């Protein structure tokens, strides 16, 4: 355990201090973690490529199906077709789903089953490197999928203004937030059964975060609840940017997601240290 | 149903003096690959029979055919007087199988693994519970009965697999490498348990690539290599037939092996050159070692020991048992 043996003596109190600067400093070693993932993933490229089809199917289904049933919806003083209304919501939720999948399922497997991290920590890599590396990996994959989704949106003509290009960084930020928290949650999971709880958290977010229709459909109290939930931040931010509706609230959503990701990352690095270097 | 047969019917399939297992011209092919190549053997009731050989010798394929889990490609095989091709389920209801890789349900408890396995034999729950209690005691797992299997040690899992195979009170127990991967203490504990079963009259068929295991457990052994039986007899008889009483092991620096072997040529009837040592087969080890020294050879270390099955295997196949 060379290189990382210093950690336990430092104790958990010293860890947060290491993490913040580490965000910028340990990138080179974290890259090794990414390299390993790419190596493993090269064999699964069919799986990777097939992931592009899912948003395409969703957009197509809503375009030919629900669009006709729902009609137009109000957005920022205009009315827009249902497809244009719902597409940013789907982009945000696909960013969430992808991030959660990468950061829970995959990481649980490596942490508990394949013991990949135990092997990594017997090299100069430290827990922070692993956390950063996995997060970078989730961001890379999430970015590619988000870009493809945005491309499909534009292709179908569901994009509202040229500002929609800003939806890309917004989707990546959404990925960051959920990947960070997802990894932190994974470090507390004990068995595959715990993944039922992940679905239990994700499905209500997916269904109720103003993804499919405006908040005004809900009673007032539910609107307040939804406004506090994480996916709503991503949905509202991406939908606002797509329509070119700039306001301070967009900055608010961004800060919410940024804090969520950083806290998740910090907790993850600390948890990995206690789990793997007891 | 086979699992609920009466005892009287259980013994009726085997005529007096008929072996528990008999194989004649037995062949197992996987596509073009011949895993078991025309072998013959018979195993008597109450006997403990071993298949000794390195990985890939065809031991597991043979065992899976006896366990009626793998169809015979050619030749005849009879287990408990029945044909596995037509009476597989009836045979399996009376044998216990310990596969090479454990097939335990890791997420169920120790006790539930025994319960569900007993149910496959259609034993009443009450009966399984009684037997499970005794078996957990027997396999020293009583205090872990309600723990999940996953965190158990390798030795504990192996003992549980054996206990599970015994829940149907089989007449024939088939064990495929029962102690591979276990530490010495766990192995000795398992050997002790298997010996007790043998004393109770259970017929054992064991594969192993450990010569000490084979010597300890088996009344009779078939030495297997590349799908064939190279020799078959009791461990002592095999050693007497294929080796000398004692062996002198000489270690020189690796580069000197060939030169020293040339120098010692003619000293003993048989001399083997291994990568790390020379083996001199002789009936008087100390005498031979004295002669080695008098010839001016001074090994870095030397050892006089009794012949083992390892020497038999080397003689029969020209290769070491454990690579």
């Amino acid at each position, binding site marked *: 355990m060379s290189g990382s043996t210093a950690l336990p003596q430092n104790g958990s109190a010293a860890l947060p201090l290491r993490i913040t600067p580490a965000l910028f400093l340990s990138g080179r070693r974290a890259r090794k973690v990414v390299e390993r993932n790419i190596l493993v993933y090269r064999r699964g490229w069919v799986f990777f490529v097939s992931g592009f089809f899912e948003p395409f199917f969703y957009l197509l289904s809503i375009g030919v199906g629900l669009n006709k049933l729902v009609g137009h919806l109000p957005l920022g003083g205009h009315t827009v077709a249902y497809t244009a209304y719902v597409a940013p919501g789907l982009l945000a939720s696909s960013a969430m789903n992808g991030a959660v999948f990468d950061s829970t399922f995959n990481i649980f497997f490596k942490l508990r089953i394949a013991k990949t991290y135990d092997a990594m920590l017997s090299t100069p890599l430290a827990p922070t490197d692993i956390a950063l590396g996995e997060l970078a990996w989730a961001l890379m994959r999430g970015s590619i999928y988000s870009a493809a989704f945005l491309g499909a949106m534009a292709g179908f003509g569901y994009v509202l203004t040229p500002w929609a290009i800003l939806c890309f960084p917004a989707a990546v930020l959404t990925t960051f937030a959920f990947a960070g928290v997802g990894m932190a949650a994974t470090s507390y999971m004990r068995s595959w059964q715990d993944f039922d709880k992940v679905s239990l958290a994700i*499905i209500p977010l997916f269904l109720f975060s103003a993804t*499919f229709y405006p908040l005004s459909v809900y009673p007032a109290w539910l609107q307040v609840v939804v406004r506090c939930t994480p996916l709503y931040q991503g949905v509202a931010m991406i939908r606002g940017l797509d329509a070119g509706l700039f306001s301070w609230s967009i900055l608010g959503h961004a800060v919410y997601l940024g804090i969520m990701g950083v806290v998740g990352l910090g907790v993850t690095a600390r948890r990995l240290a206690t789990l793997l270097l007891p | 149903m086979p699992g609920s047969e*009466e005892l009287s019917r259980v013994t009726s399939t085997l005529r007096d003096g008929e072996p528990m297992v008999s194989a004649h011209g037995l062949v197992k092919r996987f596509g073009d690959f011949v895993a078991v190549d025309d072998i013959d053997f018979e195993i008597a009731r109450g006997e403990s029979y071993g298949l000794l050989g390195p990985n890939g010798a065809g031991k597991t394929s043979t065992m899976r055919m006896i366990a009626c889990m793998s169809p015979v490609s050619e030749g005849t095989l009879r287990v408990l007087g029945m044909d596995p091709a037509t009476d597989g389920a009836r045979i399996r209801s009376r044998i216990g199988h310990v596969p090479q890789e454990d097939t335990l349900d890791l997420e169920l408890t120790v006790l539930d693994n025994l319960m569900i396995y007993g149910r496959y034999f259609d034993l009443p729950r009450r009966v399984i519970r009684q037997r499970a209690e005794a078996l957990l005691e027997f396999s020293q797992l009583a205090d872990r009965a309600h723990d999940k299997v996953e965190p158990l040690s390798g030795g504990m899992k192996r003992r549980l697999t054996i206990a599970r195979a015994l829940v149907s009170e089989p007449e024939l127990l088939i064990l495929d490498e029962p102690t591979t991967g276990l530490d010495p203490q766990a192995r000795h504990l398992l050997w002790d348990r298997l010996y007790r079963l043998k004393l109770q009259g259970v017929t054992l068929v064991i594969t192993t690539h450990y010569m000490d295991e084979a010597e300890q457990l088996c009344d009779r052994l078939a030495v297997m290599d590349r799908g064939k039986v190279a020799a078959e007899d009791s461990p002592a008889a095999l050693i007497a037939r294929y080796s000398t009483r004692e062996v002198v092991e000489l270690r020189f620096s690796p580069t000197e092996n060939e030169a020293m072997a040339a120098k010692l040529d003619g000293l003993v009837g048989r001399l083997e050159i291994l990568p790390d040592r020379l083996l001199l087969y002789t009936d008087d080890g100390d005498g031979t070692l004295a002669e080695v020294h008098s010839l001016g050879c001074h090994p870095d270390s030397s050892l006089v020991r009794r012949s083992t099955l390892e020497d038999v295997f080397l003689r029969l196949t020209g290769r070491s048992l454990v690579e």
Partner: protein
Amino acid sequence: MTVPAATRAPVPDPGPQRTRRRMATPPWARALGYWLYQYKRTWRGSITTSFLYPVLYLSAIGVGLGSLVNHHAHTVDGVKYIDFLAPGLMAATAMQIGGNEAMYPVMGAIKWMRTYFAMLATPLGVVDVLIGHLAWIALRLTAVSAIYLAIMALFGTVHSPFALLAIPAGVLTGMAFAAPIAAFAATQMNDAGFSALYRFGLIPLFLFSGTFFPVTQLAGWLQIVAEATPLYHGVALCRALTLGHLDAGPDVAHGTYLVALTVLGFALARRSFRRRLVT
């Protein structure tokens, strides 16, 4: 070997239970027993989600999105959107459960946990192992469909006493996926094929087989493709039963299609299980 018969038994205590005759449990039911044992561990979470997900989906899509549909298109195929949607979701859920239970658990029982091999070392045969597993999936589907129907009733979307038959219809829909997918799973060396099956099979079916909107909205040829899929027939059957809009000809055709697919899937699964498990 001339030992007297009485001492031949390995453990010389046959016990009274061995001589008493009792009805034998069929071998496939013993294999089913394994899955019931397994379920002891997970039933709480499983039952909770079986109740919760219908409630979430029906309130978010049925009530929430439904309010927009009612406002704009008023009705779908002549009924309120939630009445249209609920039986579709019930069938789609059955598809998902049937498919899921036939993917990872089958692979796990072959590769990871090797449960099937443990069973095959006992008097159980390959067909017993297969029927036992499929019977377990059918039981799961029965519970899930019954719960779904109960939730639908709470949302006021059950309009006919025939709706009770939607439970077997849901089971049949699930089995029409489970049997062929089990056949497929037994041929797979790793789980990569399952993702492909999800992405190019189950998800497109979920989106285009009449669950969320009538297939008549699809372009001509796409409509024909959608109507050829098993989920379409499951959705149509469940919908006819819960709405009480029965029409003997098409409904019998839907049922026959699903039964035929289940039987075909079983035959294929028997073959692929034999190939994989008996070597």
